[in-house]
């Protein structure tokens, strides 16, 4: 099974924020958003990004919600600092937590930027993958790509004969590095899936709560439906 067959399933590519999916389906539940799990969700998104070869959709709503909460918390910390000794001690504890959340946010953005830099030309060329970037990431990717192309052109390609000057093709051969979707990953299954196709003619029962070592491609669909997570 080649990766191209999987990439044609467009629904897999839009790995949306869980809440966005829910609010779209159940209009009545629009007000119910379990915001207490935001940090755990961000942690899982961070882990998923680090472990997977491809870039997921940017969790815009989640990040914005957390940033808002952090701002409010930082105001609270400032306020407490003006108070008595207990208030200052409380502020210290609050700050411990904001440090943790900031670390998660930074880690999440850093791993995404690293992936963007690694596959910048591939990402910018494909509109569906481009859609997974945030506004800022998209601007960053464009700027980075321009600089990279300038570097290659001025340092090397300019000095090569005409047929060899292209960055993206060498004759008919594609020269843009693509993420390898067949890379093996550790995956924890969150729901009993039963017999699942994990390769050409390979089936394996996937049980809830267990960790499996398998190629990334087959479990892409499970990831997008939150029936599995990487670890």
């Amino acid at each position, binding site marked *: 099974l080649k990766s191209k067959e999987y990439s044609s399933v467009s629904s897999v590519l839009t790995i949306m924020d869980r809440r966005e999916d829910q609010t779209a389906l159940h209009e009545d539940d629009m007000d119910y958003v379990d915001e*207490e799990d*935001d*940090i*755990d969700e961000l*942690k899982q998104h961070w*882990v998923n990004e*680090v*472990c997977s070869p491809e870039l997921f959709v940017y969790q815009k709503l989640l990040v914005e919600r*957390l940033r808002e*909460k*952090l701002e409010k*918390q930082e105001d*609270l910390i400032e306020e407490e600092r003006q108070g008595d000794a*207990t208030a200052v*001690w*409380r502020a210290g*504890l*609050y700050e*411990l*937590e*904001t440090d*943790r*959340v900031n*670390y998660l946010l930074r880690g999440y953005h850093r791993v995404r930027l690293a992936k963007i830099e690694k596959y910048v030309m591939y990402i910018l060329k494909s509109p569906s993958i481009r859609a997974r970037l945030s506004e800022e990431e998209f601007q960053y990717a464009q700027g980075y790509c321009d600089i990279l192309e300038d570097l290659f052109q001025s340092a090397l390609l300019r000095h090569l004969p005409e047929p060899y000057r292209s960055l993206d093709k060498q004759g008919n051969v594609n020269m843009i590095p693509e993420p*390898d979707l*067949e*890379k*093996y*990953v*550790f995956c924890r299954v969150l729901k009993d899936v039963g017999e699942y196709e*994990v*390769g050409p003619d*390979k*089936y*394996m029962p996937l049980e809830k709560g*267990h*960790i*499996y*070592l*398998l*190629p990334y491609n087959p479990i892409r669909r499970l990831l997008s439906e939150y029936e599995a997570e990487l*670890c």
Partner: protein
Amino acid sequence: KPQKKKKKKKRERKMWAAKHEKLPFTSAQIEFMSEDTSISVTPLFKESMLTFVGGNYGPFRPGLTTDVPLWLALALKKNQKCNILTPHWLSVDYLQTKLEMEREEDTYLCEMPYHYLEIATQLLHHASDDVRQPDRVQVLIDDLYRIRSAKIRKSIQTMENDDPVQLTNYCAMELNYQRMWLLKAFDQMHALSVAQPSLLPPPPRPTAP
């Protein structure tokens, strides 16, 4: 004399590895992830609800057990503001039983809390007065980790081709330690099987249901 040289190399290698830990997740990051685990504490202070980004904890009354995340429990402990109630699995009896169970099995790992190593290390380091028989517990945890790692190494030898594997009861640190090279090894085997299927032993035939 040759034996002395060997020892020095091993220690140096370990120190070098710890310094240049380039795993996708460092041990410190795994520890960070474990610090969200909920743990029970008995506060030694009085305080109303503490409002955090991740939720509200409290109110705190001396003697009244409350559940807080591990990072908060450790912070309170460091300021001597609470006593930590060690989880039931961090006890001599439980660990002893698990160790015996591990010894009985050849390659199958017994069920342990996913973050057992990180949580145990942190509690024994910062709250050893809250753990019953901390020295004994430390020894048991070390033995468990060693036995499990040996079993993992042994079970890896049975992985002959690129077939997906179920990793039952692997814990965070053990998984992370195997991460870099095990995944790369499987990538290589997969590349080999795609290029020349005859190079790898055939997958076992599925048994009839």
